[in-house]
């Protein structure tokens, strides 16, 4: 079992003012920019060693783009990404390579994330080979066996091809691949949403067990709130490229502050028809607006049940809303006397 490095003064991952903007161009011969999609538009958060930090939100809110930007597979337009206190935002491919060892990714669809022409053993060995860690044949074989066992697969299965495995087994292989380099941070982009419901809890429990044994930190991206509630330490809610609320799990689920969070939580199905019938109607109507042309003021105001005049004109700032939580909402800015001071700083 691997122990984590002693926590320094800085968090494992720190994202500061991250923006990812995509230009919209027209014309093939002489492309000209006709718009800007603000997929991620000013996101701040930190991830501590060994914790699970979740990002939830509707599809298109920028959660996956945030993940890709952290892995430097998508260039940031602005902001900084600090890994273990080091700014990796502008590193070139060569300089980035050692950092890739420390953060790995588990993808959503295990049917597309494993190369169908490679044996499982080769898939798992590839990261090791790339980083010159494979060693001689015996060492590589031992490492492979260890990885397979770690995720609950038999070492003999390394000789097989991905199409011979079930969805749950394939996701185990994908997790083993992410763990091959012994990373500190694993980004899980909807790791269970492509799986059968019956397999989901197995994979979630595997992830939690692995976290305990290996001291991993997870950045967990999901839209399924019951999954998030099960696995997270802290949760951020994203809407249209921004974090609208961020809090410790229990606080967020027991006392959501932002109207959007409240609406999301009210949309979670309750496995009891009578209770389901009694509860308030969901408060979110319609689709999220286009990130190419977001509404002025608070971007959530067209769908918000509590929208006020100020919401249509002024962008809300992030204010403390509870013991651990923060939210960007004018409702709480009015209630919180500290907001003005915080905004000034």
């Amino acid at each position, binding site marked *: 079992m691997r122990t984590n490095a002693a926590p320094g003064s800085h968090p494992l991952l720190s994202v500061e003012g991250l923006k990812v903007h995509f230009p919209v161009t027209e014309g093939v011969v002489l492309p000209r920019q006709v718009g800007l999609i603000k997929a991620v538009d000013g996101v701040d958060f930190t991830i501590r060693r060994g914790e699970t930090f979740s990002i939830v939100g509707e599809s298109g809110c920028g959660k996956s783009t945030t993940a890709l930007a952290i892995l430097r*597979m998508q260039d940031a337009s602005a902001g900084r990404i600090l890994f273990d206190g080091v700014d990796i935002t502008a590193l070139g*491919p060569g300089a*980035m390579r050692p950092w890739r060892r420390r953060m790995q990714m588990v993808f959503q669809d295990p049917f597309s994330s494993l190369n*169908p022409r490679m044996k499982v053993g080769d898939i798992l060995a590839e990261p090791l080979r790339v980083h010159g860690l494979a060693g001689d044949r015996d060492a590589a074989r031992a490492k492979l066996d260890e990885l397979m066992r*770690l995720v609950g697969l038999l070492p003999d299965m390394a000789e*097989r*091809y991905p199409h011979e495995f079930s969805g749950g087994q394939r996701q185990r292989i994908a997790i083993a691949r992410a763990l091959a380099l012994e990373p500190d941070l694993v980004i899980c982009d909807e790791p269970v949403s492509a799986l059968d419901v019956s397999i989901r809890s197995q994979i979630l429990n*595997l992830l939690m067990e692995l976290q305990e044994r290996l001291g991993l930190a997870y950045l967990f991206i999901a839209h399924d709130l019951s999954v998030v509630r099960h696995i997270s330490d802290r949760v951020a809610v994203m809407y249209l490229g921004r974090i609208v609320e961020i809090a410790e799990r229990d606080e967020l689920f027991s006392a959501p502050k932002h109207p959007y969070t409240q609406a999301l939580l009210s949309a979670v199905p309750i496995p009891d028809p009578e209770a389901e019938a009694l509860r308030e109607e969901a408060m979110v109507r319609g689709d999220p607006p286009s990130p190419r042309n977001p509404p002025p003021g608070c971007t959530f105001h067209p769908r918000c049940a509590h929208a006020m005049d100020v919401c249509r004109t002024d962008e809300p700032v992030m204010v403390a809303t509870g013991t651990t939580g923060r939210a960007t909402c004018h409702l709480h800015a009015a209630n919180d006397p500290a907001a003005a001071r915080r905004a000034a700083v």
Partner: protein
Amino acid sequence: MTMLAAPAENADLMNRATIKGRSLWDDARRRLLANRAAMTGAVVLGLLILIALFGPLFWPHEYKTLYRDRTAIGPTLEHLHILGTDIYGRDMVARLMMGLQVSLAVGAVATLVSLVIGVAWGAIAGFAGGRVDQVMMRLVDILYAMPFIFFVILVTIVFGRSIFLIFLAIGAVEWMTMARIVRGQTLALKQKEFVEAARAAGVKPLGIVLRHIVPNLLGPVVVYVTLTMPVVILQESFLSFIGLGVNEPLTSLGRLISDGQRELSSSPWLLFGPAALMVVTLLSLNFIGDGLRDALDPKER
């Protein structure tokens, strides 16, 4: 790291865990072997290749020997001219074997040329994307617009006529379709999460193309190769037919057909022999290509 208990999900796999993995290629091979038309095609083509390569060693007549006293005689057992002789008195069986050899060689080499250039070009353009892709594929569009015959005539004028030139000219035209197919496939594959995973692991671009893109391209490429060979053979025949092909006394199926059609009224066997051989060759190749396409089609899985 310590071992975790194997979950129940794997219990049924425990017993047969030592079974060796069956790759997608193994599956495809089984399906191909079960395809009767494709297997017949393969056997016939194999026989034709053997005859083309080794037949001349055992046949009593040489393809360039002129029997001046036996010009344009029909099929006869006398002197073993079982398919007759041409107007110069050359044995047709010997000429057919030579023609088949040249046609198959042109088909194989030109296809290989188009395969290598096309796969490299298409994979690089598709994977690089953006401006590189634009420039590379516009170049293909421009070359595509050039008339094939015009191109060949030009090449012939500049370099003179030779069999090597035919390989080159046909290969230089055929690779463009291959490049387009490969580029399209690459664009689709590039979006796959296993390519993202490789990038996240730090695999270099060339490694991704060689280890992840190209192996997954092979299915459609193999199919296209087998369907390209008959096209190439036909193109060579066409060039020979209009007199831009191989030089006498060397011959090819197209050249034999061209010569034969001139004597159609007086000596029809000069046309029917090479025409039948051509049809059989092309049919076998097409059957193999169709069989491969069915065998490698992922939708069947």
